[in-house]
């Protein structure tokens, strides 16, 4: 059996057209976009064309698109760039974020706190609904207060689609809530673009992060969409590239590859939604039959179609990905950014409580553009067989 790759939420392999476009840029436009000579001009033209293509696909102004070095950097630039800008104007940053953010947001928020900002976390129920008022109370503001915050020193950062469970969070509701209270909004949209329609969200939020790699684009490329008029400070220092927000020689091939990947993801969104939903549902059904006590994480809410996170009671949390790897199926226990750390997932703990997270081994199966139905079917059989084997090993005496 050929190995089966079902970890697209961690890294989605390059689409061939992305690779071809990048190679073409490396060959034809190797210059530095800041250089005045013809090579520089060619590179600059390619870079700006890539920016226009991304903006076109996302339905935003080209000037709002900042190319950065990945999804984590995009989240960091949004949050720290915003908080330092608030701080610079002499006010105290006040940040709210959800309890199930990616570590790129959660850790950046801790940095905001370390820089004397105020941070509160709002809970997310297992159906994806958010309870912002609680966190607002802790910020020391009356939940009934509807007037704008003085001088716009508040930001709500909210995940769009959970990288662990695929759960979709109600961004429209967050935007309305924030608008009524004068908060700005940042959305980590890394797992949402290409699966859901991003245009209405992009039209209503101030800052929006995405990662090229999760869209079968180049690694180390990300985008921060920053609406005109949002004040940001850079978090790296050097040249004036990317409106001064991202110093350093631009990765032109990366930007072009990102544009091709974003366009492909957005263009094929509807057909991919249907295809991946069918694949996930068949896998879910098969696993439910084979493992009757299986828990489907995120199933109480609406989910994006490319992630299936299941919980398997009664086996150690860290064993299944290795056991499946040895049988040729590549999945993860949760966020790849948390690997190396073991123990229960903070995301599942926030959604389901610590007891559930401690006793139910999570398995994140994520599908992508090159996932075939036959692979999903095969993977389902392997997972059922491996879970039986693992349970036998742990149920029996030595």
């Amino acid at each position: 059996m050929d190995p089966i790759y079902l970890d697209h939420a961690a890294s989605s392999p390059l689409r061939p057209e992305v690779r071809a476009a990048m190679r073409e840029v490396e060959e034809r436009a190797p210059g530095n976009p800041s250089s005045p000579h013809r090579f520089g001009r060619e590179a600059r033209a390619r870079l700006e064309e890539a920016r226009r293509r991304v903006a076109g696909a996302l339905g935003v102004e080209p000037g709002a698109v900042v190319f950065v070095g990945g999804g984590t950097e995009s989240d960091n630039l949004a949050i720290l760039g915003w908080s330092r800008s608030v701080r610079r104007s002499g006010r105290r940053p006040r940040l709210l974020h959800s309890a199930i953010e990616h570590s790129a947001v959660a850790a950046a928020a801790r940095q905001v706190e370390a820089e004397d900002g105020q941070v509160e976390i709002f809970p997310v129920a297992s159906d994806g609904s958010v309870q912002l008022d609680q966190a607002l109370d802790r910020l020391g503001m009356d939940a009934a207060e509807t007037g704008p915050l003085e001088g716009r020193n508040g930001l709500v950062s909210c995940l769009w689609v959970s990288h662990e469970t695929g759960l979709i969070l109600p961004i429209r509701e967050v935007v309305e809530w924030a608008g009524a209270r004068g908060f700005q909004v940042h959305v980590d949209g890394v797992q949402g673009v290409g699966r859901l329609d991003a245009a209405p969200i992009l039209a209503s939020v101030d800052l929006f992060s995405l990662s090229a790699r999760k869209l079968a684009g180049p690694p180390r490329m990300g985008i921060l969409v920053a609406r005109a008029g949002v004040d940001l400070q850079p978090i790296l220092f050097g040249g004036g590239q990317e409106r001064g927000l991202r110093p350093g020689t631009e990765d032109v091939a990366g930007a072009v590859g990102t544009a091709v990947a974003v366009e492909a993801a957005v263009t094929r969104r509807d057909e991919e939604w249907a295809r991946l939903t069918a694949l996930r549902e068949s896998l879910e059904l098969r696993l439910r039959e084979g493992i009757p006590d299986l828990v489907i994480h995120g199933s109480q809410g609406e989910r994006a179609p490319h992630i299936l996170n299941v919980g398997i009671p009664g086996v150690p949390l860290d064993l299944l990905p290795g056991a499946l790897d040895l049988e040729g199926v590549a999945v993860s226990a949760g966020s790849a950014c948390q690997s190396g750390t073991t123990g229960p997932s903070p995301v599942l703990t926030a959604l389901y409580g610590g007891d559930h997270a401690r006793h139910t081994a999570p398995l994140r199966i994520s599908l992508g553009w090159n996932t075939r139905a036959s692979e999903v079917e095969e993977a389902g059989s392997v997972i059922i067989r491996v879970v039986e084997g693992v349970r036998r090993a742990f149920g029996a005496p030595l």
Partner: protein
Amino acid sequence: MAANRILVAMSGGVDSSVTAALLVKAGLEVVGVTMKTFCYQDTPAHSRTCCGLDGILDARRVADTLGIPHYVFDVEKEFTRDVIDDFVAEYARGRTPNPCVRCNANTKFGDLLRRGRALGCDGIATGHYVRSFRVDDGRAGLLRGLDRAKDQSYFLWGLPPELLPLLHFPLGALTKPEVREQARQLELVTAEKPESQEICFVPTGDYRDLLRKRLTPRHPALEPGPIRHVDGHLVGEHNGYAGFTVGQRKGLGGGFAEPHYVIRVEPATRTVVVGPQEALNSSRVRVNDLNWFHGPPEPGEELRVQLRHRAPDVPARVDAVDASDLQLTLATPQLAVTPGQSCAVFRGDELVGGGRILAA
């Protein structure tokens, strides 16, 4: 599932790296595993101990070099229960534990075996310097490593006997210099890594820090108490009997005409009893928490016992033995036979079992 898939416990040290390499060379399907045994957050970032995070990363790099998969298993809960809690409780009882024995008997082999089976492995290998053997009637057992300076059979008496047929120790017939040479030839990143000496979960080297953290605040083991001479007179005061082990000279204060040693610890009165070297001699030993690979020895049987790591084994006669208690007479009196330490029992070079020393 593949046949002859074998799990190798890789600490990130040179021994387990070469173990994995030798098995790959032998054509087996090798799966490398590092066990995360305790929380690293309290330890210095560049901990040199085998079980530190450095170890996990080194093991991963070696596995990559060898082209084998490598996984990290979190056995912190099991390790804390079976090894660290026991370690603390033993010191609180005035005894001197062997945590490596507990780890081998429980974590390293027991918990590893379950996980190995879950991964479809039919054997487990480690980098211990000890030899395993199997004979045609199905019996399996352990022999001392050929490199006596590195032999680690002392730490393995507690293994569940049913595990023996599944164990592989490819280093048992090698010397440490040979192992390092293999590592260099294979260009393994761990080739020149120094030996780990400390107890892995006590990276500072001072186990009393751990006791202070894990015992109740005013636990008697950490409270001052009398130091008395074996003849009964009061010699001084100590600041917690858990800091003392039989045979120790340090920390007793001076003022003796001849060197004095800890002879025993009496937790009931928090007393540390000291005396001259001859008071450390004992020729009778009682051993509890027994484990036998092929059943207990016979009363009257002459065996060899090892009472400390790196000590030579000595002849001993079995005076009495039942399910929980072994009484031995040593052919020659031994110094500092210490309650809590292991008594590993050998017939010639074969490790046949052992227990924990109760009293001498």
